[in-house]
């Protein structure tokens, strides 16, 4: 239980990197949403780690805030994915480029 702070931060960094690669490299919107969840949770991990190590509860509170935002984000993101799927019948974010200038 008393692993050093660096270990938690390294785990958080690995999670964040996986999340970024997932968002950028994958074209399936569901995978991307899951990768975004990874990003959120890596941030949560970092917040909680620092909160514990500095004995400051602000980090915990921020973590709860992030969880709330993540839930909302997932709801909106999934709704968009469903609507796009209804219209186009395929699931590939690169095909959804109607906002191209």
């Amino acid at each position, binding site marked *: 239980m008393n692993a050093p702070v660096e270990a938690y931060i390294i785990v958080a960094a690995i999670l964040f990197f996986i999340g970024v690669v997932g968002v950028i490299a994958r074209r399936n919107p569901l995978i991307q949403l899951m990768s975004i969840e990874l990003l959120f949770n890596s941030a949560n991990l970092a917040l909680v780690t620092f909160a514990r190590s500095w004995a400051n509860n602000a980090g915990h509170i921020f973590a709860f805030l992030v969880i709330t935002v993540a839930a909302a984000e997932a709801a909106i993101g999934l709704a968009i994915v469903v609507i796009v799927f209804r219209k186009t019948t395929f699931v590939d974010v*690169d095909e959804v480029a109607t906002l191209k200038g």
Partner: protein
Amino acid sequence: MQDYPLLLLIWLLPLFGAVLLWAFGPQLKTWAGPIGSALVGVPFIAALTLWGAATTGTGAHQTLFAWLPQFVFGLQLDRISLVWTMIITGVGFLIHVYSIGYMAGEKAFARFFAYLNFFIFAMLTLVLSDNFVGMLVGWGLVGLASYLLIGYYFERPTAVAASKKAFVINVVGDIGILYAVFVIVAKIGAIGYGDVFAHIAKFSPGELFAVCLGLFIGCAAKSAQVPLHTWLPDAMEGPTPVSALIHAATMVTAGVYLIARCAPLWNASSDARVLVGSIGALTALTGAILGCAQWDIKRILAYSTMSQIGYMIMGVGVGAYDAGILHFLTHAFFKAQLFLGAGIIIHNLANQQDVRLMGGLRKKMPFAFAAMTIGVLSICGIPGFSGYFSKDAVLNGTLAHGHPVMWAVGVLTAGLTAYYMFRMLFVTFLGAYRGDVDPSELGLRHPELAGTANPHAADDEHGHGHAHAPAWLMSGPVALLMIPTVLIGWLDFGGESSPWGQFFAPVFGKFEPVAGTLPDGLTGLIVFVLIAAGFTVAYMRYGNPQALLDAIPRLRAETVRMPSALTHAFYFDAAIDALFVKPSIALGGFFSRVIDPHVIDAGVREASISANWLGHLFRSFQTGLVRAYALALAFGAACFAIYYVWIGAGR
């Protein structure tokens, strides 16, 4: 200071008439003429009743309003403005009455009288103002009135061109006066005549000359002095009563008024006196020479007007103010008479103005012949007629002020005047009527040779000759004008002790002649000899029985052989064209061909093109690919991270 509200009446009645006739002209119909005349006649009588007040002290005065505390506007009727007011309203009234007959049947009868009343108002503003700014306002307004009346026949392109020319040249003069007023306000800080003349010592000699020069540029433009005279012969495009009133009797003498009014300035600057006197003498001679070469009766009179104003300007310029004003007074009468006489001829010959196509009118129009003869005798300066006294006074004045060259030019001009005026008289009235002669027999078919042949003679459709008003409407004013034409000069009989000399003694003071004057009467004698010579030459060429018999071939020969320098009026128009008009047009062309498309338009165009280009640039960033955005976001976040971790941490 006692106020004279009657001055307001004198000043504003003609304006009221102008507004009334302008607004209700179609309803008033032929009543426009009598109403317009009455609204000029009443101010004349009102001005007469102020004679006593005007000739005591600084004259009758009425304050109008204070523009700024030290810039108070007012009306002032003193001895100088009294003379002008009398002529403007008196001769103006007669010419209004004459116009009722002359303009009868015109489509725009009321418009003519509205303009004429407006002119009277403007001219009264000019002479009644007690300050430079009010004078300048009147100065501009008479230019406008002149423009409107020259262009009265606005469906005729030559009339429109002439009115534009007159206006533009007059505005050049207005700018000169404006400049002088700026200098006056800057140095003295007042605009009233009395205030300014009381502080002349504040001017340095250079500034004083600059003020005089600025004022004189205005005078030269308004009074048709060389080289700003070219508009006056063209101004004859206006109806003949207009030529008589504005372009002979009143408006063109505004320059004489201004110089006489600003006598203290000229008294203080001998350079200005020499300049103005020389220009006046030059104008007198130029006008007389050109008058010898004209065939249009109104143009002959126009050049003689120019020449006579040259005398006046020469007189007031050298300092003989009362002589110059006297010549204005006599000229107003005899020139109005000549123009109105010519108007009777033109009216009865259905707008024929070319003297070559007249001839023999003595029997057809004896009254016009009598009127014109009296006018010619007066303008030539035959002893006993009014022109003799005033011309003599001007010439003696130039000599008494020490300008023998100007005197010589003036004397020579007097001889020329006799020649061209008698030439006009003989060609017009003696011999046989040539109106039914084929114009080509007179050399008229070659416009480039015919010079000033009237281009709009018989084919005019303005209704002259169709509707005839009672003949007395035209002959009555001319008959009345005969009296002063003959007699008014006697006011000056007896020199300094004469009524005229006494009248202006309080204004211009006493003057000690410089050495070298001629004995009394010698100038008159020399002038008389030259007049006799001019008359003789004119008689030999145009008046003797043999010349009258073969008038047609003689006139033809003269038409064809006329030197081109004379038919082109010494190329003044061409010179102004080459020096100012062509360069202005070239400059305008340069701006329209180069600056406008390649600088102004190009600037606007390039601004819009660059906005378009920027839009294209940013548009290429907008791929619509979510993953590309995410990559950019991650890259940006990485940059922040790198900054804070490595670079920011070092601080």
